[in-house]
Every structure is written in C-alpha cells, then in structure tokens.
C-alpha cells in the first residue's frame, strides 16, 4: 500500500499540520506501510495523477485543506482519501453550517449567531452588538467561522469585551461566530471506522491548567491534563458518545472525524464543532482516544487506511 500524506500548506496551522504529518508517517512506517509527505504545491496535482497512490491522507488544516477544495480535487482524480467528501467537508468547515445541520437533526448546540464583518460596516456596530447582547446570554465565545487550534477564539463577559473579541476573530476570517458559553466538562470524541463500522472511541476530557484550552494549552506539553477515558459516569459518557456518533453521521465525516462537545452541569451534552482533519501530533486528542481504546497508533492508522480505501467505493 502506498499512501501520500498531505501536510503543511499556508494556513496559520501549517506548523501543526507538518507535525501531524510526520507523526502519521512514523506510525504508518511502524505498521509497515510506505508513505510520503507532500506539500500542497504547484507540483501536487501532476504528482498524484502520475503516481496514483492507493490512498491520500490529508492532515492539512485550514482553508484549502478542510474546506472541501482538496477533497473535490481528489474526487476528480479518482483517488481514495481519508475523511469527509468534498460537499460534507465544506459544511463541516463552516462552523455555523455545521451547527445548523446539527440543530436541524435535533441535537443540542449552544445558541449562536454568525456575522460577516460587512454586517458591522453596513449596520451600526453598536446596534448590532447591542442586539446580540440582548439575544445571547453572556459569557460569549467568539471564534472565526473557519479554522481550528483555538486561533482567534476568545471569551467576552460584556458588550465592550465582545467588540474587542470581534476584532481579534476577524483577523483570521471575514465571518465570525458568536456562541453562548456552556460551562462543563470539555470532551473530544473521535469517531472512526476501523473495518467494523463507525464507532465512538473513548471520550478524551480536557482540563486546561489556565481554564482555557487555547493554542498554548493545546500544543505545549504540560499545560493541559487529559483524561482518557473522560471522568464521566457510564450513562453520561454513553449519551455523549451517542451524540458524537450521531453528529458524525449527520455531518458525513467519513472514516475518521472528531467531534468536540461540552457536558454541562445537568449532564446535557452540547455539540460545539467537528474536525474534518483531526490533529495527530504528540499532544493531539485523537491519538489519545486510539490508545484509550486499546489500539497502538500503528494499528489504528493502518486500520483507518484500509477502511478508507474500502469506503472510497461507497463515496
């Protein structure tokens, strides 16, 4: 089996993507699988159409990697790849579109509004923020509608803070989502098909030392404590797993995806967002879930690769 790993790109998460790519290549090698890491550059399309690898595994983050574009090109090339197809990836990548789909499916997700920066230019910013402040309950979480790794994400406790958060988030993206903050246990649930159908792996619970699972807390060892499986009672954990699996299916994440949830104080799980291309660095969440499920990473990645090749014919 020959796998091409796509990593790097020009998104703000380039560094993370490269780290994920190298870790993935190492574990595939452990499993005896030949892989090559390639950047999405001007040579890529020719390279893929000439070499026709058995599978493409993209760990690209950001636009171009998760927004369905690369997936569409891979579909056009007729190549098997890991993760959501182009149409689904586009919807998952846009956090508001994903939340709308989840909400329509009857799953709980915190109240939100998505606002393009032109809205603020056209309408009076004070009026818009005033209305948002009236309709949504503080504290609020502001995040770029696209992107990951908590870049551009901040919390505000009042209208003044919200304005500042908007400026920060607009540095990453022209559209921003404002969401009610839900206090509770933060979970990341990886859904995977290792050849026996889709299943939820044990939830990984995130407890950041600073109280905020931001960029530093994600990628600096020692800043966050992870519990895998999460410290939840069996039925609560099962409810969270059921919701994650349902969300994964509704969103069409394919053989591998990650769903981020919060379980509030009343044990209600809330969908926050999903990842088309889960990070695979040494501190990423999905590798912890594989280990907690009893896989070695080599076994898990091999099984996912085989499953993705099979799944391709159903795409």
């Amino acid at each position, binding site marked *: 089996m020959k796998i091409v790993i796509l990593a790097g790109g020009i998104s*703000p998460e*380039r560094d993370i993507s490269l780290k994920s790519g190298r870790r993935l290549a190492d574990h595939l090698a452990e499993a005896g699988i030949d892989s090559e890491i390639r950047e999405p550059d001007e040579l890529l399309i020719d390279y893929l159409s000439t070499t026709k690898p058995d599978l493409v595994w993209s760990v690209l983050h950001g636009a171009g990697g998760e927004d369905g574009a690369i997936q569409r090109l891979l579909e056009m090339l007729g190549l098997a790849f890991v993760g959501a197809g182009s149409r689904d990836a586009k919807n998952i990548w846009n956090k508001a579109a994903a939340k709308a789909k989840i909400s329509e499916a009857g799953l709980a997700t915190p109240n939100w509004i998505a606002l393009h920066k032109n809205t603020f230019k056209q309408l009076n910013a004070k009026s818009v923020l005033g209305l948002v402040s009236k309709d949504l309950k503080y504290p609020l979480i502001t995040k770029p509608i696209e992107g990951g790794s908590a870049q551009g994400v901040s919390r505000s406790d009042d209208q003044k803070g919200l304005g500042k958060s908007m400026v920060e988030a607009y540095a990453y993206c022209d559209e921003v989502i404002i969401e009610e903050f839900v206090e509770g246990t933060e979970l990341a649930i990886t859904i995977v098909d290792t050849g026996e159908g889709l299943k939820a792996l044990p939830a990984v619970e995130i407890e950041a030392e600073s109280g905020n699972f931001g960029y530093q807390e994600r990628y600096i060892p020692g800043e966050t404590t*992870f519990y895998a499986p999460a410290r939840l009672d069996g039925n609560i954990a099962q409810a969270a797993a059921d919701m994650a699996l349902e969300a994964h299916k509704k969103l069409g994440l394919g053989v591998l995806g990650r769903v981020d949830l919060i379980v509030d104080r009343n044990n209600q799980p809330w969908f926050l967002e999903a990842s088309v291309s889960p990070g695979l660095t040494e*501190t990423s969440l999905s590798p912890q879930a594989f280990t907690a499920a009893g896989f070695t990473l080599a076994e898990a990645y091999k099984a996912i690769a085989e499953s993705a090749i099979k799944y391709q014919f159903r795409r």
Partner: protein
Amino acid sequence: MNETNTGSITNFDYWKSAYAGRASNLSVSEVRALFAVVSRPEVVSLAGGMPDVSELPTEGLNKAFDSLVSTRRDLALQYGGGQGDAKLREQIVEIMALEGIQGSAEDLIVTTGSQHGLDLLADLFIDPGDVVLLESPSYVGAVGIFRHKEAEIAHVHTDDEGLSPEALQQSITELKAQGKKVKLLYLVPTFANPSGVTIPTHRREEILKICESEGVLIVEDNPYGQLYFDEIPPDAMRSMSEQHVVYLGSFSKILSPGLRVGYVLAPPAIREKLTLANESAILSPAMFGQMLVGEYLTVNDWKQQISDYRDIYRQKRDAAIEAIDKYLPEIRTTRPKGGFFLWVTMPEGIDSKAMLPLAVSELVAYTPGTAFFGNGMGQNNLRVCFSHPSVDRVSLGIQRLAGVINNQIELLKTFDAE
C-alpha cells in the same frame, strides 16, 4: 500510552514539576506558529532578519571551502580551544579596526553567533531580579535571553537619535532609589534592531559617561555597523572605552548566519570567565565554521563583498521606503541609513500581533512590535525587514501589508464607533 502517561491521565510532560523556575519563561505562541508559513515561497517575508546570502559569490565560497578542506582539514574537523581559532581572532581584529576599535586577539572569544556571546554574558552577570536596561524597542533575542535569566527588564526612552541619555540617567537613578541592582545596558547603537536608528557620537559619549559613573556595564551589539548606505556611521562605543564596554560582533549579517560565528571583545577578566563558561557549555565553538570564515576572509576580497552588500541593501531600503510612502502615506516609519530594518508605527488601537494572521493570509509576514519589548509595549508597532526578499518582492510585500493595515484601520473604526 508512553513513558509520560500515568494510567489514563496525562499532561504529556512527566517532568513538569521538576523544571527550574526559569523554564516557565519559555513559552510558545500563535505568532511563532505563523512563522512556519513564512518558508512558503508565496509569502513575502518581511519578518526574519535574514541576510541575502544568494548574493554571496559562489566561486569565492567554493574557493574557501576547497582551500580549507585541502590544506587544514584535520584541524577543521577536530575539537578546538574554548577561546576560538587564533587565526580567525587575528582577522577579527582587522575587521573591528574598521569600526575604530583597537583590540587584541587575546581579548577576543569566538562564540556560536553573537547570540551565544550574549547568553554567556547574561549568565555571568545576571542574578534573578537584577536590572538590565534596554532600548525601547530592543532586539527580540536580547529580550528573550534576559527574560530567561529572570532579569528585570527596564526599557529606556529612545527617539530618532536612539537611546536618550537623560532618560537613561533618570531610569538608573529611579531604579537604584528602589534598591535595585542595575547591572547591564544592552545596546545596538548602530542601525539598531528593530528601529534602524543610529546613536550619534555626542550621545554615545554621554551614555558612556553615565554608565561609567553609575557602574553599569555596556553591552554593545554591532552586527550591522558595516552595512551603511550613506555616510560611515560613528565609531563603535568600544573604541571609546576598553573597561566599560563589552563588544559583540558577528559574521551573520556580513557573511552567513548558517555558519554561526560571532565574537565577544571583553576586558581580560571578563574574557577569561567567558572562555571558561564557553568551554563549560560547548567545549569549543565549531572549528569548521570558524576556519571556513577565516579561509573566506583570506582568499576573497571581503571588503569588496561588504561594499556590494551595501549597494544591494540600499536598493532594498529605498524600495521599502518608496512603497511605504506610496501605499501607506499616513503611517510613520523610521528611515534607516544602514542595516536591515524599518520600525513602523500604526495608529493607536491597532494590534500588530492580532493582525498577523490576516497578513499571513494575504501572503506577507512581519514581526509584531510586542516582540521587541519585555513589558507588552509595541502593540501598534511592527518591524519590517527588507534585507532578504528581492527589491520587487519588498515592494510587493509592503503593498500587501498596506492592504492589511488599511483593512485593520477600517475594522477598528467600525468597532470604535461601538
């Protein structure tokens, strides 16, 4: 999972509780991650202070390499002394003479880049809580070292003529009145990083006088002194005092940062301790790099090569300033007469760190101003480095940057109205 795992609970750092207190000063940020994007060819990087090594003569480099390998290979591949290669030190004396310095090869120590020299000096002088005075803004690498050594960083007011002697005196007086130990004044007096400004001779004399009377050691970092575009800059401060100035020099900007060869000229007692510290840390600076530099200087007309660099960087500086005048006429920038950098001041309220992702998505990168302060200042500043991209790419980069800044100004106005 692995050795860092405790059952099903992990923070991925088994040794977290064992680190020294100063390790907490080592942190990562989104900004650092964004710099990974800079290596992509689509991005015009106005960020890192990189020389344009593509302009170095290939034939001259080959000649130096071949000559070294064929004549002194066994020495170059062997351990060396902690003070550095004796022949190179003699050559450095010749280079320093161009800055007006009458130094001895005996008082020189070769280091792994001048950054390493600064680290050794900080180790030698700084106890936690000691005060280090820095320009405002100051070199990011110096801020990092002094922060890591747990120094208290005090920035001294700096204007278009560099560090203000009056502000320096005032700072020292106030800090001493608070019972603090003011140990070092770290300066890049010629074509400063990041501001590009040069301290004139009369100010250098005043600064030296103040530091002499207050017992503050001056650390003069001078990597850019030879890269002047107009008139020759003032002599190095070390030429005015042997006892009160430790001088840091480097081949990183006039030859190659990849070779990692820098040097320190210090009074004998300090030099002796630095040599011991150097040996303790790394045994000896890399012999191959040192001897390759020495050979390059021997077999090439290095003065002509530096002169060529002056012409190249002058054209890039002109392109940068012309583009700023054209695309950002309202923005204030320094107009350096040498070196690599422009210091840009944007309207209050713009956060250059928060703006960086937007710039990267527009395929241009710079260094946010806060990197050059130990106290969070510099939010509405940024450093533009014009040395590495081609002349056309410098203009293109500034044009892209102008779009980003203008967008940010508009966004700020939108939310300011709130």
